[in-house]
């Protein structure tokens, strides 16, 4: 009677475990090799992912991803119910992250010097979702009443402006307005902090003599910033008389850098896996040679080719699982130790990536057993018996 599948597997597993146990140094070394490979993969992969997420967040986390403007620069865009339902109804848009804004330029003057300011005007509740003004406030209390102004922190420092100070601005047509500095905010980049200001929506409307529903732009943020290109294309097709722009087309260099970084990260990970695979394959092949005599005897006693091959599949499985578990522990330890290094971002391991790394580690181990399995399956017991 042929043994059942379960009985066959249990014996192959038992023999595999014993082979590993009787060569502890070899087993530990190969598991350590897998562990180092998986740990490096987990650490490097998580590091690159977190670094890129931080870079993207720094670049566009507090700025619009998709912007709707009039076809002609300077013309207003009417925030109609058509646009509202299109933008509001799109599931890719972050809920609430829609800000109709009026954009203006003005010259700051403190009597001695003047400096240009790029002004974004809108309701604080709308701007807060995109620009996170309240969260980014360094001093003062963020407010955008009709005569309030919020400045970038570098600008405020450069001109020694403190909350409560009067800020004199000269708009187009030499219209001079005096506003009160409500707060200074850190917008995440020196360029933005040196020339950006936020005010309430009514002053530009009065300057431009626009209707209540007319704005310079409708700014939005996506749940996934990288959806912006597709969303912009779709909206552009819908809103034929308007212009739709998105952040990626304006940041091609950054995207190229991110893609290059991803590519180099994948290359590193692939080469690590290849090195791990070669390590396991060579060790298992050596083990298969070392155990030729035993396999020959077992076959002489009636162990089938399939079951003898399965011994090395089990060995690979045990080495793969053991090495991967060790690698995950080592990887997490590396990530934890990274938290003590003073860098502006932290590594957040993604469960999906960890699972993928584990699956890849075990799969690589299993694939590495192909050569010893084939070698073992082909072994004829007579070769061992005749060689004595």
């Amino acid at each position, binding site marked *: 009677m042929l043994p059942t599948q379960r009985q066959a597997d249990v014996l192959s597993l038992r023999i595999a475990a014993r082979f590993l146990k009787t060569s502890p140094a070899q087993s530990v070394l190969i598991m350590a090799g897998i562990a180092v490979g998986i740990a490096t993969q987990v650490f490097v992969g998580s590091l690159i992912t977190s670094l890129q997420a931080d870079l993207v967040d720094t670049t566009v986390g507090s700025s619009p991803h998709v912007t709707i403007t009039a076809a002609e620069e300077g013309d207003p865009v009417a925030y109609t119910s058509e646009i509202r339902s299109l933008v509001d109804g799109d599931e890719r848009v972050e809920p609430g992250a829609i800000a109709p804004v009026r954009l203006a330029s003005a010259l700051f003057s403190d009597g001695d010097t003047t400096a240009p300011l790029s002004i974004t005007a809108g309701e604080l509740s709308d701007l807060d979702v995109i620009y996170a003004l309240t969260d980014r406030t360094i001093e003062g209390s963020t407010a955008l009443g009709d005569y309030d102004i919020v400045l970038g922190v570098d600008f405020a420092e450069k001109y020694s402006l403190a909350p409560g100070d009067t800020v004199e601005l000269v708009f187009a047509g030499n219209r001079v307005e005096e506003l009160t500095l409500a707060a200074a905010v850190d917008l995440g980049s020196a360029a933005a902090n040196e020339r950006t200001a936020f005010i309430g929506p009514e002053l530009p409307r009065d300057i431009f003599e626009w209707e209540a529903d007319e704005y310079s732009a409708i700014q939005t943020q996506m749940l996934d910033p990288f959806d912006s290109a597709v969303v912009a294309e779709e909206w552009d097709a819908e809103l034929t008389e308007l212009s739709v722009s998105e952040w990626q087309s304006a940041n091609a260099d950054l995207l190229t850098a991110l893609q290059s970084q991803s590519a180099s990260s994948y290359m590193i990970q692939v080469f690590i896996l290849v090195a791990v695979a070669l390590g396991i394959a060579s060790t298992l092949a050596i083990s298969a040679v070392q155990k030729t005599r*035993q396999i020959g005897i*077992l076959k002489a006693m*009636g162990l089938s080719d399939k079951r003898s091959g399965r011994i090395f599949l089990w060995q690979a499985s045990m080495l793969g699982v053991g090495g991967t578990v060790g690698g995950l522990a080592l990887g997490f330890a590396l990530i934890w130790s990274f938290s003590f290094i003073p860098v502006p971002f932290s590594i957040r391991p993604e469960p999906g990536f960890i699972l993928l790394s584990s699956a890849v580690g075990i799969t690589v181990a299993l694939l590495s057993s192909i050569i010893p399995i084939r070698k073992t399956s082909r072994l004829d017991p007579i070769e061992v018996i005749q060689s004595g």
Partner: protein
Amino acid sequence: MAEPLLLAQSLDKVYGTGDAATHALRGVSFEFAEGEFASIIGQSGSGKSTLLNLLGLLDTPTSGTVRYKGTDTGALRKPGRAELRNGLIGFVFQFHYLLPEFSVFENVAMPALIAGDLPPAEIRTRAEETLGLLGLAGLEGKNANALSGGQKQRVAIARALMNRPALVLADEPTGNLDTTNTDLVYDLFRQVSSDTGTAFLIVTHDRKVAQRTDRVLEVLDGELVADERNRYLG
């Protein structure tokens, strides 16, 4: 008429091809009944081990057939041959070929574990009984490497008997043993044969050893030149 346990018909074994071809066996035919206690004798290189390997289904003949209880083993695929080897035949070689990674008990139990058709408790009982029969009781937990040469060969015999085979094929089983252990092994073979009805076919180059068996098959230059019963007995 009942089928013999083993029927070898016109067995040829040729190694190599063309001018380099070597005939290891030529037209060997004989029958072997259940419970027989026989030897194959011949000088070194005569083809006796080749014959044993063919009979043990470890090797395949160039032509001719080996039948076990009427089953033509040439028609079997590798898994079928492995199953037949496991259930019907026990092997004892000149070298004990024990598995150094396993204990004495595990080595003896291995054929039954490969067969996978006995419950663990019965495997243990049978292995202990077999070890007891061979004077190895109490050594079950020892590593196979920790035994003396004679003990190792007796463990190998216990392993060969584990699945209660119909036939034990032994190839120079005492080739590495001293006289005392040699006598012990052949006494054991004889005792097991008479106690259990197991057939034994023992390859040897030693006529004194062959004297201990009931039937002697003599191989010379790959041919079966004699098949005599009790020639050396009595």
